[in-house]
């Protein structure tokens, strides 16, 4: 919202100090996003009269213009625009002028004849988009004066304010000025002109059909109007506030809105069918061409303003129709000022994606009782250009029951004090909020506050607490630190998650953060069921799948890096997945994914073992259940009890193909929601022996059907208490497919009470060989 400095100072006795006002605005919650100077004129551009124009046989695209700037000399300028004639007054950029676009105007010759400067269009002077021709000024303009002075341009300072949802009143200069006046403790001056009604009775009757959507609709007839230009000061202020001048009637309408915040609409009364209004909901699919020339199709939830013949002439609170627009022939207008239900306006705006200055205000909730002042102000301002205008008796003020009631709030000073941390008395509260329009009835220890009709946001005591804080100043409330009576800290699960991060990082894995949305096909390409929760309104069409697995994102990360000549990368991710569920929410859980490009399944198993030891987890490796999307002969599920808690192995080659990955990828996936909840077993001390240890190496030929794990288990059992360490140190598979392979184990034996004899070691060795043989393992 653009708020003009000089305008504010018309309404409140504020200091002429931009910095102070800017700071105060932010300090009362009207954040200033920028302060800019507008209406600055281009130095060196002065007014001049065209003496004559002349074509030159050698210059087809330009003509010669002879100018008089009142100094008695004839100046010659080449010009490419032909819209001026002798006698016109135009802005002349004299040599040495720097134009707003940075161009330096110099004396330059064309066909050998020098051009002293340039004739300017409106656009070249930064005055709008009109570059059709040179700007022709009022014939009465004095010569040789700065063009800005001639046009009545005042330099204006404009604050760009971020108006928050709870402050509809701050869309108008009056609202901002009122707040600032209270902050600076200076008088707030709102002129309340009296409406001089002198004409005979002429009415535009109103029928409100949709009373729940329109609480008040007033019309008043003003005749004796002629359409002309607005005074320069008004054009200048409107421009500063970001609005283009159209004509005197439309400009006054906009000016009143920017000042009082009340949107209004002036209809050409002659074009108003039946001479009246009807406010009703649109029929589904009903059409109207709005002022911007666009034909719009409506729904049964949009509110229409129609004339008395039921013809739509405007979308209520948003934009008028083209058919009743003010034209140069207009002499009588029907001025409409109304109050529309804000939420419905907001919904229509969103539905149609049609925004206007009026809708921005109406959708936030206007002051239903600010209408009368705005009508009087409208007439007062229009009288400046139409001194003969007549306001007719017979104003219509149609109201429905949905007019917002006046709100009265009980305020308890102890409550205010308790929430703000400073003591506020009844009188202090009154002194802070009365200047911004909250009238207070006070008793010894409480206030009854009547909320001004322009503050629809205030409905509760807490809203008043905020007003008190705002005008007391947040900075003045001090800073204290509450004493927490609980110890700070991470939960056990959060501690375990941190430990998991540390272990994974220590193992050399980089942490990735892929996007949680997947594209159609990502899941099936990863060999996973294509069953997922989807977004209703994705940002990118197709990116609407909520991931059920971290795998697709991690595979994309590997593929991306491989395509950038980085093979062999390894990533982990700890993140949420969102499988479908019939419950209120999807079956969201936390997962871990580890992918190791260029490595095979045993590497993933080794990682699992390391995590299991480090985190105190246990799970069964079950190669008979191949997780979907993983390599069928190199993968396993990890199960704890009856539940699957993860998968380990290698990505299926088909999946690698689908993701354009040419390396093997080892993978580990874990359900952290389950695993992090496990209370880890705390490792218990095992005494170490002081006696020497002895090693036995045993290499077996083991049938493929027998797992290494089984042999290990058998060796452990048979070796008994003397076994302190057992490692698989070699696996050998013949080149040809075979139904067996060789597994070599090293067993370390040690006793706690003696040095082992050769006989002890030999006995264990024999038992182990026999134990393994029962599983079909032959000593090599």
């Amino acid at each position, binding site marked *: 919202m653009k708020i003009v400095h000089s305008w504010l100072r018309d309404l409140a006795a504020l200091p002429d100090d931009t910095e102070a006002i800017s700071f105060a605005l932010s300090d009362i919650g009207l954040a200033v996003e920028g302060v800019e100077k507008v209406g600055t004129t281009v130095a060196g551009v002065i007014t001049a009269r065209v003496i004559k124009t002349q074509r030159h046989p050698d210059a087809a695209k330009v003509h010669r213009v002879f100018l008089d700037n009142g100094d008695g000399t004839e100046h010659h300028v080449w010009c490419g625009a032909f819209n001026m004639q002798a006698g016109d007054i135009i802005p002349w950029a004299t040599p040495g002028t720097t134009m707003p676009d940075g161009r330096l105007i110099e004396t330059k010759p064309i066909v050998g004849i020098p051009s002293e400067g340039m004739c300017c269009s409106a656009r070249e002077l930064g005055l709008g988009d009109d570059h059709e021709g040179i700007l022709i000024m009022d014939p009465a303009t004095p010569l040789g004066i700065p063009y800005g002075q001639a046009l009545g341009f005042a330099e204006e300072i404009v604050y760009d304010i971020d108006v928050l*949802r709870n402050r509809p009143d701050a869309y108008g200069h009056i609202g901002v000025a009122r707040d600032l006046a209270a902050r600076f403790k200076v008088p707030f001056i709102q002129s309340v002109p009296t409406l001089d009604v002198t004409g005979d009775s002429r009415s535009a009757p109103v029928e409100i059909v949709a009373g729940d959507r329109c609480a008040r609709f007033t019309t008043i007839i003003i005749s004796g109007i002629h359409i002309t230009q607005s005074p320069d000061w008004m054009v200048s202020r409107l421009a500063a506030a970001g609005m283009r001048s159209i004509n005197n009637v439309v400009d006054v309408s906009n000016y009143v809105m920017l000042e009082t915040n009340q949107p209004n609409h002036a209809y050409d009364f002659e074009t108003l069918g039946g001479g009246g209004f009807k406010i009703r909901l649109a029929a589904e699919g009903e059409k109207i061409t709005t002022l911007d020339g666009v034909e719009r199709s409506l729904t049964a939830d949009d509110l229409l303003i129609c004339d008395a013949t039921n013809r739509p002439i405007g979308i209520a609170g948003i934009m008028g129709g083209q058919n009743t627009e003010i034209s140069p022939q207009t002499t009588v207008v029907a001025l409409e000022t109304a109050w529309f239900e804000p939420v419905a306006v907001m919904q229509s705006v969103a539905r149609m994606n049609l925004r206007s200055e009026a809708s921005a205000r109406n959708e936030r909730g206007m002051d239903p009782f600010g209408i009368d002042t705005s009508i009087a102000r409208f007439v007062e301002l229009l009288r400046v250009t139409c001194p003969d205008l007549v306001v007719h008796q017979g104003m219509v003020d149609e109201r429905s029951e949905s007019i917002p009631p006046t709100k009265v709030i009980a305020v308890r000073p102890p409550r205010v004090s308790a929430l703000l941390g400073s003591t506020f008395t009844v009188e202090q509260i009154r002194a802070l909020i009365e200047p911004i329009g909250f009238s207070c009835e006070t008793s010894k220890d409480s206030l009854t506050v009547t909320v001004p009709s322009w503050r629809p946001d205030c409905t509760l005591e807490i809203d008043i607490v905020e007003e008190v804080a705002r005008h007391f100043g947040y900075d003045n409330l001090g800073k204290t630190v*509450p004493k927490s009576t609980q110890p*700070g800290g991470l939960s056990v699960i959060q501690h375990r998650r941190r430990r998991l991060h540390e272990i994974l990082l220590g193992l050399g894995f980089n942490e990735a953060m892929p996007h949680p949305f997947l594209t159609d096909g990502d899941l099936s390409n990863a060999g996973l069921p294509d069953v997922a929760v989807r977004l209703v309104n994705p*940002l990118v069409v197709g990116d609407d799948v909520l991931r059920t697995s971290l795998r697709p994102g991690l595979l994309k990360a590997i593929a991306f890096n491989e395509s*950038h000549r*980085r093979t062999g990368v390894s*990533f982990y991710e700890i993140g949420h997945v969102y499988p479908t569920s019939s419950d209120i929410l999807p079956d969201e859980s936390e997962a871990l994914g580890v992918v190791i490009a260029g490595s095979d399944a045993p590497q993933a198993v080794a990682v699992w073992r390391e995590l299991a030891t480090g985190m105190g987890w246990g799970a069964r490796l079950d190669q008979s259940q191949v997780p979907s999307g993983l390599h069928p002969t190199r993968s396993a599920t990890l199960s704890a009890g009856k539940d699957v808690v993860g998968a380990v192995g290698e990505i299926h080659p088909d999946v690698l193909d689908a993701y354009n990955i040419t390396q093997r990828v080892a993978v580990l996936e874990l359900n952290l929601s389950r695993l992090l909840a496990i209370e880890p077993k705390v490792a218990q001390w095992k005494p170490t022996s002081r006696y020497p240890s002895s090693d036995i190496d045993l290499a077996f030929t083991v049938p493929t059907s027998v797992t290494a794990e089984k042999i290990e288990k058998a060796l452990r059992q048979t070796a008994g208490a003397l076994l302190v360490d057992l490692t698989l140190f070699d696996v050998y598979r013949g080149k040809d497919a075979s139904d067996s392979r060789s597994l070599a184990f090293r067993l370390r034996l040690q006793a706690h009470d003696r040095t082992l004899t050769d006989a002890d070691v030999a006995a264990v060795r024999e038992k182990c060989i026999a134990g393994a043989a029962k599983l079909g393992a032959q000593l090599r």
Partner: protein
Amino acid sequence: MIVDINAARAAAEQSIANASTIDELRQLDTELLGKKSPLALLKNGLGKLPTVDEKKEAGQALNEAMSAVEFTLAQRRALLGRAERNVQLSAEALDLTEHFAAPGRGKSHIVTQAWQRLEDVFVGLGFQVAEGPEVETDWYNFEALNMPPSHPARSMHDTFYVDHGQPGSTVLRTHTSPVQIRVMQNVAPPIYMIMPGRVFRNETTDATHLAVFHQIEGLVIDRGITLADLAGTIEAFTQAFFGAGFTSRLRPSYFPFTEPSAEFDIRTPKGDWLELGGCGMVHPNVLRAGGLDPEEWSGFAFGFGIDRMAKERHGVGDVREMYTNDIRFIEQF
């Protein structure tokens, strides 16, 4: 006898001096001090000496001689050992700048790093950490936070709707604030909690905006909590996290779930102000939605972006870079 002893000693010392390797010395050890060494043989002859005095004198000389030989051997051994070690050391010389890529530690994502640093600072200020689901019901994300259906403030949130349950009933949380309600429902006050997490906004991404990003939310609920407590907590955090030279300021603002509401800005030691996040006193309607009586309990909440902390700390020019999973990005931190 004495003459023989002295001669044997001199001969022994000479051969020790002549030895040039540790191995030779090891051999000499046996030759010069062993059972068949000249000195040992002389010792065997002691008994044949006629007088006690002679025996005594020769015995003493022999002991001295053997000690001397032992000492000389040890000295020589040490000398040669040092020389040999020196040869070994110079032979083992390496240029330590000839380094190969070695297995390195993995790199934590910079958002996780920022996240954990924030958690640690708040833990130090007495906070615990709560978590909640990323897919939320409309009730937790909006309604319980004083944004009933059609509340104008909902339009400030560009919401991703999820096709689950009744149309419009499920969303990707647009902020971490729904966790406030879950905490209030599950934890009896006093509550001193932070709630970091992933949030979602359906808006076009650019160098400073992401559709998927991370926020951290703080919630304090206790008896007698004031707006001044909020300002003081923000100040304490600012100094703990950014450094002692930083200060903070609250500016009035508007959020449906807090009142009074504020933006909080921090001031760098150089005097620049940075907008950091939003905060305010928990709205009575929100306390009620969380099952708490606003007449008994009061509290404040605050929230801000985690990604921006990472971006600013590491000078990342474009936030989207943080989520490419490009190893060349990740490896830098």
